[in-house]
């Protein structure tokens, strides 16, 4: 890893185009795993076969299709209140993915700004930001989130803010390290000598160079945030009913593991499938854009 630091950066346009032409198999699997929930989330209102909130005890706990007692009208069965599982999974994809994306936007923005400032200005700014980063790293993210949720009312906005505020640290560390190296390069030196302002150097000359790292970190963060959201919702501290998320669906499923496996199995598969897609795509992006991040 250390050996390649002095080499010219990979990820030039020519190299990227070549890499795009022979996308490895895992990356294709990743794309498929990701395109399906993304498509479903965008077109949810038009493809939901039933109203995801419609309760009907008379058709509670119908199993999914190939199993005994299933009903073709309810492809993936119904839950304990008779709500259609497929429609709820489709509806839940919206919140699960939205929280993931918004959380990353927030975490990425804070982390990018913190990393750029710490790396570029150094000295006091760097010391202050990195101390905060160290402190936050000493607490497991979910523990910090629990502290915040102890004092703020849970809900969708809270969830996004909390996930953003606890996930920026990874960006800050990695981007700072990159900036430390980039700011010593000749083109930055040249820009300084031309009298270009610090803000402009940061935004026009340094930021584009940390973008590959930023993109790779973002894919990993989406995965982390989607899993954290589902864990929090599962604990009853994340998404609140009547909103639906995959994590929340699992909570009610837990009470029915003895007689209705699909209640907890299906939402978990949805989460795991989506996250797997993101990870596979992330691995490929890392290898293509920024080989220095991994082996």
């Amino acid at each position, binding site marked *: 890893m250390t050996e390649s630091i002095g080499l010219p950066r990979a990820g030039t346009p020519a190299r990227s185009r070549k890499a795009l032409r022979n996308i490895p198999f*895992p990356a294709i699997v990743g794309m498929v795993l990701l395109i399906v929930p993304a498509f479903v989330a965008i077109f949810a209102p038009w493809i939901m076969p039933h109203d995801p909130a419609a309760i009907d005890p008379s058709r509670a706990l119908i199993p999914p299709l190939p199993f005994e007692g299933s009903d073709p009208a309810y492809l993936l069965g119904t839950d304990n209140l008779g709500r259609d599982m497929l429609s709820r999974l489709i509806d839940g994809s919206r919140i699960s993915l939205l929280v993931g994306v918004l959380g990353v936007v927030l975490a990425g923005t804070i982390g990018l700004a913190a990393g750029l400032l710490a790396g570029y200005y150094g000295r006091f700014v760097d010391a202050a930001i990195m101390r905060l980063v160290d402190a936050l790293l000493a607490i*497991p993210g979910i523990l910090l989130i629990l502290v915040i*949720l102890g*004092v*703020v009312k849970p809900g969708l906005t809270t969830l996004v803010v909390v996930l953003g505020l606890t996930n920026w640290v990874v960006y800050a560390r990695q981007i700072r390290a990159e900036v430390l190296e980039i700011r010593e390069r000749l083109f930055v030196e040249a820009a300084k000598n031309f009298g270009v302002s610090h803000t402009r150097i940061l935004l026009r000359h340094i930021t584009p160079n940390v973008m590959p790292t930023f993109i790779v970190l973002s894919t990993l963060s989406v995965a982390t945030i989607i899993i954290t959201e589902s864990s929090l919702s599962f604990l009853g501290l994340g998404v609140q009913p009547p909103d639906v998320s995959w994590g929340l669906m699992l909570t009610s*499923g837990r009470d029915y593991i003895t007689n209705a496996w699909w209640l907890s199995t299906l939402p978990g598969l949805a989460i795991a499938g989506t996250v*797997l897609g993101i*990870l596979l795509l992330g691995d490929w992006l890392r290898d293509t854009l920024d080989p220095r991040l991994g082996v």
Partner: protein
Amino acid sequence: MGYYVGRRLLEVVPTLFLIVTIVFFLVYIVGDPVALMLGENATPERIAAIRDAMGLDDPLPVQYWHYIVSAVTGDFGDSYQYHEPALAIVLERLPATLMLAVGSIVLALVIAIPMGVWAAMHRGGAVDHLVSSISVVAKAVPTFWLGIMLIMLFSVNLGWLPVSGSGTWAHLALPMITLGTGTAAEITRLVRSSMVEILGQDYIRTAYGKGLRESFVVFKHGFSNAFIPVASITVLQFSALLGGALVTESVFAWPGLGQLLVKAVTQRDMPIVQAAVFVVAVMVIGLSILSDISFKLVDRRINLD
């Protein structure tokens, strides 16, 4: 060496101070401790009386000072639910969580080291692809869901292991597997990549050239050099693992910190939450210092400055 240990210990102080400060601001500025304590039906008179008794009408710096002084002495106040010192309650629950965490790490290492080495020895082959696929899938599966699936399979359908609770080794098995899987995946990837790098070096070829047995070369010459990076990542994983333990405990009703904490958050029992954050932070920081020092003792090439 002594200088280094002293400096690292000194560095802990501002970090801990910052953590305590962050928690102070969250509880006292973002939230209102009295409102948290009394709930929504309290009368204004009662709120005023409690505010006065707790010193909440003092200027902010004064409150902050009192808070820091109590935190330094380990006094986070009494739990609102149990009416006992919060720190004592947290410390009482700690061993169960540590047992789970340490068990999971051991399990993860036992699985990850052979898998990673095996994959590295067959780099690019079927074994390598299989190990990589398994580890990426293991990383994608949410911990708590894996727990529920394991309960469904081993407890409900096969009836081999208890559904939840604690007390015997059988109770520990499922939570340990649940928590250890993600960590195992992470460590496997790391062992593989370090071993790939090491096995490509000249001295390994020389060792083979001398006619040494493959297993001897791989483990004695190869893995002993991968040990330090693997161990340091394992230590880094500990913080994430504790986070995972909080969720896993809720799935299995394991009587550790996690259960205590989730209940404290829903009941808004902030002294417990504050004490738990403090204890966990001290543990994570302490472990990282301890590991840095022991790696230095094991490998003299590591430069501590």
